[in-house]
């Protein structure tokens, strides 16, 4: 089992990820909000990009983590991997909600609407619903191994579905109206690229930190539950 060695490693190194995330995000926010220039077309509004894009990227990264943990769990049946998957799902939900929310706020001044059925927005909404379904499914299952296995199956199916959803919505919208925004071929100014990449790395580190803390917590809960079960069965004997 990987678990015992891994949990010590998590406990020892988690704080460095947290510290690095805070430092990068503080620098990123300062350069993004203060020193970088405003956009030629969008003006000051563009600065929400430094939060929105990292939110969305990290949500995708978190869901990929959930996917790989799920495959790993089905393969090796290691409980801590399931704890990591569970943790990743919760955090992915948080970042997806953040991405949708900031996207909506950005959409109001630039596209003049809070919501549009843009492929990316729609696939993020479906990602959000899938993650909610994943977490709900887990709460309804009592057996630990069944919870882990069924969750992993759902996560894998959802991950495979996501690109198909994206392409189908892209086709669907392109028949009705042109895409509201497309970043393809848009190059980005150097003083914008710096805060954006700082924030992206900072968010990724923040996600890693959250994942490490939450995985430990879920693993301890798992151990506690197992211990309680043992004690109860001893009492009955």
């Amino acid at each position: 089992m990987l678990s015992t060695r891994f949990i010590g490693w998590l406990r020892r190194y988690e704080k460095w990820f947290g510290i690095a995330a805070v430092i990068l995000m503080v620098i990123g926010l300062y350069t993004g909000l203060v020193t970088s220039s405003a956009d030629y077309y969008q003006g000051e509004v563009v600065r929400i990009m430094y939060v929105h894009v990292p939110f969305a990227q990290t949500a995708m990264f978190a869901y990929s983590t959930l996917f790989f943990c799920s495959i790993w769990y089905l393969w090796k049946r290691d409980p801590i991997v399931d704890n990591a998957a569970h943790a990743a799902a919760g955090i992915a939900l948080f970042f997806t909600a953040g991405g949708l929310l900031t996207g909506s706020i950005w959409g109001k001044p630039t596209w003049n609407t809070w919501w549009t059925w843009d492929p990316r927005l729609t696939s993020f909404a479906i990602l959000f619903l899938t993650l909610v379904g994943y977490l709900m499914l887990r709460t309804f299952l009592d057996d630990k191994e069944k919870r882990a296995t069924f969750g992993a199956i759902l996560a894998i199916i959802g991950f495979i579905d996501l690109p198909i959803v994206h392409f189908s919505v892209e086709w669907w919208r392109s028949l009705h109206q042109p895409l509201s925004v497309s970043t393809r071929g848009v190059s980005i100014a150097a003083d914008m690229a710096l805060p954006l990449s700082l924030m992206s790395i900072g968010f990724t580190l923040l996600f890693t930190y959250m994942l490490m803390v939450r995985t430990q917590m879920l693993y301890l809960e798992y151990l506690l539950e197992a211990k309680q079960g043992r004690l109860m069965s001893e009492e009955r004997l």
Partner: protein
Amino acid sequence: MQFFSVIRWIAWKDLLSEYRNRENISSMFFFAINVILIFSFSFSLDPETIKEIMPGIIWVAFGFTAIIGLGKSFLVEVNNDCMEYFQMLPIPKGAIYLGKFLGNFLFMLSVEIVLFPLFVLFFNLDILDQFLKLLLISTVATIGLSALGTLFSALTVQIRAREVMFPILLLPLSVPIFIGAVEATRGILSGDAFALYRHWIELLVVFDVIFVVVSFWIFEFILDY
């Protein structure tokens, strides 16, 4: 060869028990009629609007029918303690999935075929000469819907709040099916050339292939417990 005979027998058993008690198909059918009835009150029925909203009505009705019909697919196996026997079968467990999938697909398709004339009747549609194309779209969309539905039915059958969880899992993931089916049906109803909506059918076929294969492979893990 045992593999194929398991698929055949499971599908056959489902069809036979359905033929004898007619619970599933009749509930799906009358539920769909209710949905159609409610829709006909909800929208104005002048011919231009009908053409615009009809594909949506058809596929919402079929989608709800799928939720009613497919959600209970594995319930009968659990109630009769058949899951343990499935686990003991000395063949790849995907065969059981394919058998259940085949049965569900045939239920769904037969309900849809019976419902099409009712759409013609209630909404004055002129689709009888396009029937074969509609059948093609129904077939490819229903394959995808039954593939996901059968898998999620096995996933949710043993949990609390089964009736709630099944649609919550199924509907977001079947978005591509609904988009593809609605757009292709709209193409047919407005009399477009086949080439204009062929890509939707291709999308549905890709979806079908991916999810039948993935579900076939992943079903092994569901039956482990």
